[in-house]
Structure formats: C-alpha cells, structure tokens
C-alpha cells in the first residue's frame, strides 16, 4: 500500500483535530491540573463537625472575649473575637488572632525538662516525668524552708492581674518569702502616683468613654495593642461618621500613630512631657483656671503647709508659679513655642470634660514618679477626682479573698516596683543570697530593659525553675522546666482591665484538652503546697485550679454586685461612678455557668469616697514621701520636672535612644508569631536587620544614607543596625522598636533584628525604686 507523506500528514492532522473534538485532551489537562494540586505532601486537614467554644484571651492584660472554632472538638482551627462581648464587639488584636500559632508552636516544651549539661545549653535538656519534677522541686523548697531560708526563694511572675497572681502571692506568703515580684509595667507608676496622692493602692483609671478632651502624655492609644478592651471601645466611639467627638492632644517626641491621629500633636523633647504638664499647671494657677472650690475643700498641699513636727513647707502653688515653669521657660525645655503652651493650657482649662492621661498602652514606665505626679496634678486642679469624675481608681473585683496566712510578713504587693532593685542586689551578691528563682508567664531575660542586669543577676542564682510553655530566653537558662498549659488549654481568669474605670472579671476555660504532657502551674503550686504541708498546705486547700476559681467566684456571687454582660449592647464604658448595676445571676453556680460560657462580669466604676492620706485629703504635697526618711528639699514632696539623667558622656554619646512599641510586634511575654511577621514593614526589618529611625537632618549630619549599616552603641551595649531616614523622628533622637531580636524559640522567630532592651538602661526612681525607661544616650558610627 502506498502511504505517502501527504497521507501521513493528513492522518496526523485528522488525529489531532479528532482528539481535540473528543473530551480526551481536555480531561487530561483538567486531571493534571487537579493532580498538581494534590501531591502527597499537600496537607489535607481532617474534616469533621465544626463547633465553637467561647473563651477569654489571656495573652495580654486586655482579657478580650474570644471564640475558637474547633473540628471534632479536638482540633482548633481559628481564634476570633466573640461578638457577644460589649467591650470588644467581636474585635480581636493581631496577637489574639494568631493565638493558635502558640498552641501549635513547634517550640513548645512537651514535658518537664531537667538541664543535664551546662546552663544555657539547650541540647542538655532531658525530659523527666512530672512525678520526678515535682519531687525535685518540692524537696528543694522543703529543705530551704526547714533551714530557715524561705527568703532564698524568689519568683518573677506576669504583671497581668489574675487569680493566678493571687495564688502565687498566697504561696510565697505562706512559704515565708517576700521576694515575689511581678514584671514591671506602666501600671506600676499609675498605682504609685495614686497611692501617694489618694492614699489608696490602686492604679488610676481614666474614663475614656466620658471625656471630651484628652491630653495624652505619651499614651499609645492608637498603637493597636495594649489592653484593647479598655481602649478600643472608647476609640470606636470617638470617630463616628467622619466626625471626631473627642478632641485628642498627643504629647510625645515621635510622630507615632497616636500623634498622627490626634487633633493636635505637641512634639516635645524626650522626657520633657512633664515639663509641659507643669507649664500648663503654671498657667492654670496664674490665670485662676482651676477648680478652686474643689482644691480648697479637698486638696492638701496646694498652699504652703506645715508638717506634724510644725515645720513649714512650700506648697504646689508656690512651686508651680516659679518662672522655671513659665511658658517661655517650658518652651525652651520642651522645644515647643510658648504660644502652643498657652493654647494647650487654655483649652485644657476651659473644656469642662478635659482629662489628662499617661501610661495608657505603654509597656514600660517611662516617667519617674515626680513626672507622674505632675500629670496627676493637672487632673487634681481640674477637679477630675470628684466622686463622679473622669479619674477614678481601678476598682477591686469582689472575688472571695484567699484564706489568711499565719505568717506575719506579707509579700508586699508594692514590691512589684522593686524588681530592678532586687535584681541589682542579687547581682551585687547581697547578704541574703537567692537560692532559687521561679519564673512564670514571664521572660525577664528578654522583656526587661537593661538585659545585662538580668543576665548578671541570673548567673548568681543556683537554681532557676521555669514554668514556661515555650523554650524562651529565660527557660533556656533554667535548670528545671515544669511547662504550663498554653493560654487556650487552661482555666484562667482576668481580674480587671488596666486603665479601665469599670470593674471587669472574666473566666477562660480550656477550648480543648491539653495537647502535650504539660500541667497547669496553678495545680503545680497546689500540689507543691500540699507536699510542703504545714501552713502552706493549709493556706491553699483547693484540689484543682477550677475549684480555686469557683471558690473565688463564690465571693463574687455573694457580693451581689455587678452583672453578667450577656447582651452585646450593654454600654459598659458609659457607666458612671457608683451607678447601680443589678445582678442578673442568682447564685455562684449560675454565675460560674455564665462566666464559663464566655460572658464577662462587670460593674460600674467606683466613686472615690474619701482619701486615705495623712491629711485625709487628695494630696498635692505627698506627705507619705516623708515617712521613708528625711526629705532634703521641699520639692521632693511635690510634683515637679526633673529628668533622671541617663549615664554616659554626652560627648561620646551625643544622641538619645528612645524605644517604642509598634503595633506589629507582640508585646511582653510572647514572641512574634509567624502571621504577625508579615506585618513588619521593610522600613523596620529586612532579613535579619532592624532599622533605627532617624530624622533626615540627623542622618545628613552623620553622613548616613537610607539603609546603611551602622553601629548603634549605648552604655549598655552595641548592635549593628540599618538606618531608616524618616521625618517621624525628632532630630537628635534615634528610635528603635521593641519586640524584635529574639534569640530563642525557632527560626520563624529568631535572629530578626536586635532586642532593644539590651541597649536601654533603667533609671531607678529615687523615691520608690521604681524603674523608668525613658531614654539612654547613644552614638551611631559607620560600620
């Protein structure tokens, strides 16, 4: 048969044309597309029944209501806000939304660990059983107590207000040690200022939902995080339909997000915010624009005063009226124009509902006590501390109090200010050495400024016990690790929200069974207490943490105070002080059931009913300062502006380094989860390099260009960083974000930038020993 080329080509064309008309090639194309999406290594998440579980996020002190989505009740696939909560309205922050990345983190510690090699060698951790771990820890604690060395046990715990913190306090008190410390937080300063001026040991609370004019001294209201439950409900209210109903004036050195959103931004030199406050007070007093009636009847120390011994002292009026606080003088100190100070004072004085706030949303105390008193003085002059005023004190939640302990010495809550002083004395090798340090829900080696201090102090402690769920920087240095459940696996509670005037309580129950061989640290404490026995065991009689929380909630139910917010439209932030809230629960069982279902308990703000100072009045001249010893200068009783000088020679370190907390890094205890890493812009982090922000003029003077690698050196340390030239920076000041520079966890977290805390220094406040971190001297050099 003749089969020529033409025939062949015709046949081929026909075959191709024919098969194109058949489903074959199209089906093959579709099949291969599907096949390429179904490799064997493609994760196929298990299907099943989808359910929701309500809870409370305990990853920061915000205590936001959340709900989790679960598959088959044992696999969590989403954390989202709980729309039933009237404060958050279903909103959640980036950290909360990433919550599962901690539950399922590859760097979780799966069971108790004992360090068998040298300290810090992560490969030396060997798993041990819970029985072994508890026996070892219990034995050591019992031995120390038997030898009369109870004080040699120290603890560092989270600053988050919870029943867990109260249990720790109970344990330490019963055990006989006063060395229990909470991680420093900005609320410490608010508490101390309140204590000195009102005599009550409870932090100031600000009615953000009621104020019409807010003078914010460095508060990060819009920085995205920092107790969203207290701040965001107010923020949502402020901008409705393109109109801002509240006027916000922001005072700080850097053009932050809050400064960008403020109606007015008063850019001041770092640390001089209190000078502006004094300048405003100066004008208010000079022009008579203050609540004279309130001051006359309720305030002590406005006029010159006489103390118990008959000695005469200068009062606030005299101090603030000095020319040192005139608009011209304050303008010089702050870098503002005198006219701006006049305007701010005029507005603050004239607005009926004007409120001065500070420390809200800040992770650290950036203001020494006298500066805090200066901000507080503005509220005093304004009459904001009247019973239904814009400033109240954080109310106590009427939970059942823990059984009284036999020991006389109470691990004083005020010692939370003394953590820096404590670490200093440990480092120096004090007469009472610390044998054992227990660390829970805290990562001091990373989160505390002046890292060198923490490092050197820890070296002096023979036994470090960590309860961390994660191999963080501090856990890596531990000798024994008894891992806690993560936030969503454990029973926990939130006792009050910082800065909020209303009372708040919420309970978080586990959304699923614990994934690993971890144990609730509360139950570990109960178990240890039982083992040590005696007064310790008797002071902590509960068999489980849930039993303990139920016990506390019984007190709440018995108080017949407050109500459960079981409807999303309850206007909690609009409650005025002392307003009656009718309980909508009959007994403890019903209350517990509602709390477990994810509803929060709330009550109206507590009206300030009298002051417990030496004078019985609100004190501008804080007489209790005198009880700590001889006071050399009258002004040491009064609010005044005085910067605690950072160390270092100005000629060697001509710049100031100020750290800031951006919205895209996780604050405090937890590291950045991978989801949040995507939020970090290239102007802050590129690869492993963090950028320090400086003004174009500063960069030009130093001869640096955008992105250049430079050495940033302070008296605390040195790091290689890149330059980000930005007009957000104040000339002469360089800024570094906190939240980066981890050295532990895993490669999703590690080695991104520098831990700003390792470069900063802490100034110890002369009156209280409270640490402030406002700035340190720095230099930038070409690398």
């Amino acid at each position, binding site marked *: 048969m003749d089969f020529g080329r033409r025939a062949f080509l015709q046949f081929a064309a026909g075959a191709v044309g024919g098969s194109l008309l058949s489903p074959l090639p199209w089906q093959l194309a579709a099949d291969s597309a599907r096949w390429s999406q179904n490799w064997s290594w493609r994760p196929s998440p298990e299907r099943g029944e989808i359910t929701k579980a309500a809870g409370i996020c305990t990853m920061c002190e915000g205590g936001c209501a959340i709900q989790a989505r679960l598959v088959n009740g044992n696999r969590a696939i989403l954390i989202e806000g709980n729309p039933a909560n009237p404060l958050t309205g279903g909103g*959640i922050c980036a950290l909360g939304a990433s919550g599962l990345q901690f539950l399922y983190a590859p760097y979780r510690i799966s069971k108790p660990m004992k360090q068998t090699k040298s300290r810090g060698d992560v490969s030396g951790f060997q798993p041990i059983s819970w029985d072994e771990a508890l026996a070892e820890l219990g034995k050591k604690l019992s031995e120390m107590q038997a030898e009369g060395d109870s004080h040699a046990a120290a603890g560092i715990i989270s600053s988050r207000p919870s029943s867990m913190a109260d249990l720790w306090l109970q344990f330490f008190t019963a055990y006989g040690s006063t060395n229990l410390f909470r991680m420093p937080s900005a609320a410490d300063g608010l508490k101390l200022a309140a204590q000195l001026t009102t005599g009550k040991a409870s932090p100031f609370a600000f009615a953000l939902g009621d104020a019409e004019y807010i003078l914010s001294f460095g508060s990060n209201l819009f920085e995205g995080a920092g107790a969203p439950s207290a701040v965001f409900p107010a923020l949502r209210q402020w901008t409705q339909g393109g109109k801002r109903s509240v006027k916000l004036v922001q005072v700080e050195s850097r053009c932050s997000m809050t400064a960008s959103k403020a109606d007015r931004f008063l850019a001041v030199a770092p640390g001089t915010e209190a000078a502006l406050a004094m300048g405003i007070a100066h004008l208010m007093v000079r022009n008579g624009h203050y609540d004279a009636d309130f001051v006359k009847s309720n305030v002590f120390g406005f006029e010159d005063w006489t103390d118990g011994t008959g000695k005469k002292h200068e009062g606030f009026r005299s101090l603030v009226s000095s020319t040192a606080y005139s608009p011209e003088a304050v303008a010089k100190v702050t870098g503002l124009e005198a006219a701006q100070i006049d305007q701010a004072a005029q507005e603050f004085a004239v607005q009926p509902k004007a409120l001065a706030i500070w420390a809200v949303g800040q992770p650290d105390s950036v203001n020494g006590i006298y500066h805090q008193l200066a901000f507080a003085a503005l509220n005093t002059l304004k009459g904001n501390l009247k019973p239904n005023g814009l400033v109240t004190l954080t109310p106590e939640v009427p939970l059942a109090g823990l059984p009284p302990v036999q020991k006389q010495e109470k691990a004083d809550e005020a010692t939370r200010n003394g953590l820096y002083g404590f670490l200093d004395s440990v480092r120096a090798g004090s007469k009472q050495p610390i044998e054992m340090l227990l660390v829970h829900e805290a990562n001091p080696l990373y989160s505390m400024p002046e890292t060198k201090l923490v490092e050197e102090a820890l070296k002096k402690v023979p036994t470090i016990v960590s309860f961390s769920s994660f191999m963080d920087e501090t856990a890596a240095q531990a000798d024994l690790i008894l891992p806690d459940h993560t936030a969503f696996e454990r029973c926990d509670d939130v006792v009050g929200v910082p800065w909020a005037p209303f009372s708040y309580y919420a309970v978080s129950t586990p959304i699923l069974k614990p994934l690993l061989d971890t144990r609730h640290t509360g139950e570990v404490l109960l178990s240890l207490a039982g083992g040590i026995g005696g007064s310790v065991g008797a002071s902590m009689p509960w068999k489980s943490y849930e039993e303990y929380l139920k016990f506390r909630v019984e007190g709440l139910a018995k108080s017949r105070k407050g109500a459960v917010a079981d409807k999303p439209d309850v206007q909690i932030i609009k409650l005025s002080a002392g307003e009656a809230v009718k309980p909508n629960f009959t007994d403890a069982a019903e209350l517990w059931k509602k709390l477990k279902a994810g509803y929060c308990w709330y009550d109206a703000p507590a009206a300030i009913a009298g002051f417990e100072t030496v004078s019985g009045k609100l004190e501008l001249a804080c007489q209790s300062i005198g009880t700590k010893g001889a006071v050399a200068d009258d002004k040491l009783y009064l609010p005044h502006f005085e910067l605690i000088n950072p160390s270092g020679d100005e000629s060697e370190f001509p710049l100031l380094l100020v750290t800031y907390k951006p919205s895209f890094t996780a604050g405090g205890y937890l590291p950045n989860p991978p989801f949040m890493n995507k939020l*970090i812009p290239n102007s802050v982090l590129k690869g492993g390099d963090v950028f320090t922000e400086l003004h174009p003029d500063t960069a030009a003077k130093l001869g640096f260009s955008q992105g250049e690698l430079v050495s940033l050196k302070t008296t605390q340390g040195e790091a290689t960083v890149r330059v980000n030239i930005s007009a957000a920076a104040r000339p002469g000041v360089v800024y570094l974000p906190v939240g980066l520079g981890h050295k532990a966890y895993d490669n999703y977290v590690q080695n991104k930038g520098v831990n700003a805390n390792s470069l900063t220094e802490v100034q110890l406040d002369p009156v209280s020993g409270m640490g402030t971190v406002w700035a340190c001297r720095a230099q930038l050099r070409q690398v």
Partner: protein
Amino acid sequence: MSEKEHAEGGVRFGMVIDLDKCTGCGACSVACQAENNISFRPDESNKLRSITWMSIFQLNNGRNYPDYKYAFLPRPCMHCDSPHHSPCTFVCPVNATTRDENNGIVTHIYPRCIGCRYCIVACPYHARTFNWWDPKWPEPMESMLSPEVSTRMRGVVKKCTFCQPRLLKARSKAYKDGTDPDKATYTTACADACPAKAISYGNLRDPHSDVARLSKDPNAFRIIEKLNTEPKVYYISTQDWIKKLSYNAVTQES
C-alpha cells in the same frame, strides 16, 4: 456596573474601610491568614514573596517633623466591578478566575489555574499573590488548618475571596433553614476581627446596609478610580493627603 449584558443579582458584596478609625493594628491581615490557611515563611521581609491577601500599606503625608503624619491602608482584593470583566478575569486564559455575577465576588478556582500569572500583571492593586514554592507548615501547625478552605500548592495564584467559604456556609444554612440562599448574609473574617470596627462589609445594593450608606459618605473614595476598575472596596478619610495619594498608584508597601 453600567452596561448589563449578563444577568446580575440583587446582591453586590462590597466593603467600606474607615481610615480614620484604622490604627494599623494588623488584626484584619492576621484574621484573614488564619481563616484562609495562608502559609508563611521564616523570613517575611521580601514583600514581593510574602503572602498576604489583606495587605496593609503605609502612607505618609511627606511633611517634615513634627507635621509628619502616617496612616495605614488595609487593602483586600477590590473585586472590581468594571463592566463585563474585572482586569484580572479578563486576561485569564483558562477561566480559572471569574466574577460571580450573582454576588459580584471575583472567584478563583485553584485546580483550574495554570499559574501563568497574567492576572497578577493585570491587577493594578497588586492584590494577587502566587505560590512560587509549595507552602510548608511546621508540623504541629498543620493542625490549625481549616478543612473549610482549600490549601493551595505551588503554581497557583490566590487572593482575597471576600471569604467566599463563609458565604457558601451561609447559603448552605439558608437551604437547610428553608430561606432564600440568595438573601443569605455573612461577614468576612477581617470585618469581624477589626477592633476599631473600621471595616464594614455587606451588600452594596441593600439600601439598609451599613456599607451602602457608608459608600455614599461625602468622605468616601476608592483607589485609582480613574482606571475605571470600579472597585467594590471604598475608603473613608477626612484627611485630604490620604485621598490625594489614592488617585495615583499603589506601590509595594515599604
């Protein structure tokens, strides 16, 4: 939205984002990642490779200290409503991405996508991302993957879908309940998550909805409107400098 040669439903899902309220906290971006099984890598600083469906741009007013101001602009897919085709659906050679005219959502069928990335080139908002590599999750984190949203391997394009799986769930529920699925409403993960309540989501054609009302706000605007893409995501801002920046271009976030 003007010429209608194809049938259109009474539903057109859209979004309004109030930039005055937005604090740039990133909750929307993270909630989207968690809802949609979005993968992540150890180093996310290469923003051309970093996968975010809700990206957050940083804008500033270009002025000197202390008048410098900055703002954040969350940008999901705009689900452009330009007549007949969105820029991306127009160029797709295999019809992997089409606009569902029943509700206006621009959808994407992953197995059909051949990875030519023509749609990425076409999108003026840089809303689309591509899987250059197989995504890898650290083993324990595979447990948090949702079975309701597909996981996507290398070679396909993906973008914000206005949480279409949530819409399908709402429609299924409507079927079960006996109500009209076309009238089923739902919200996106980003709108739910926003703690400032800056994101509103709903049916632009429903005169009673928040989005319909807010999209007509005198301060409402859309990005690069002059391209006639008819985006269904509106922004509100009282700051003129933000509006001015929206006229021109969207550059990769710094």
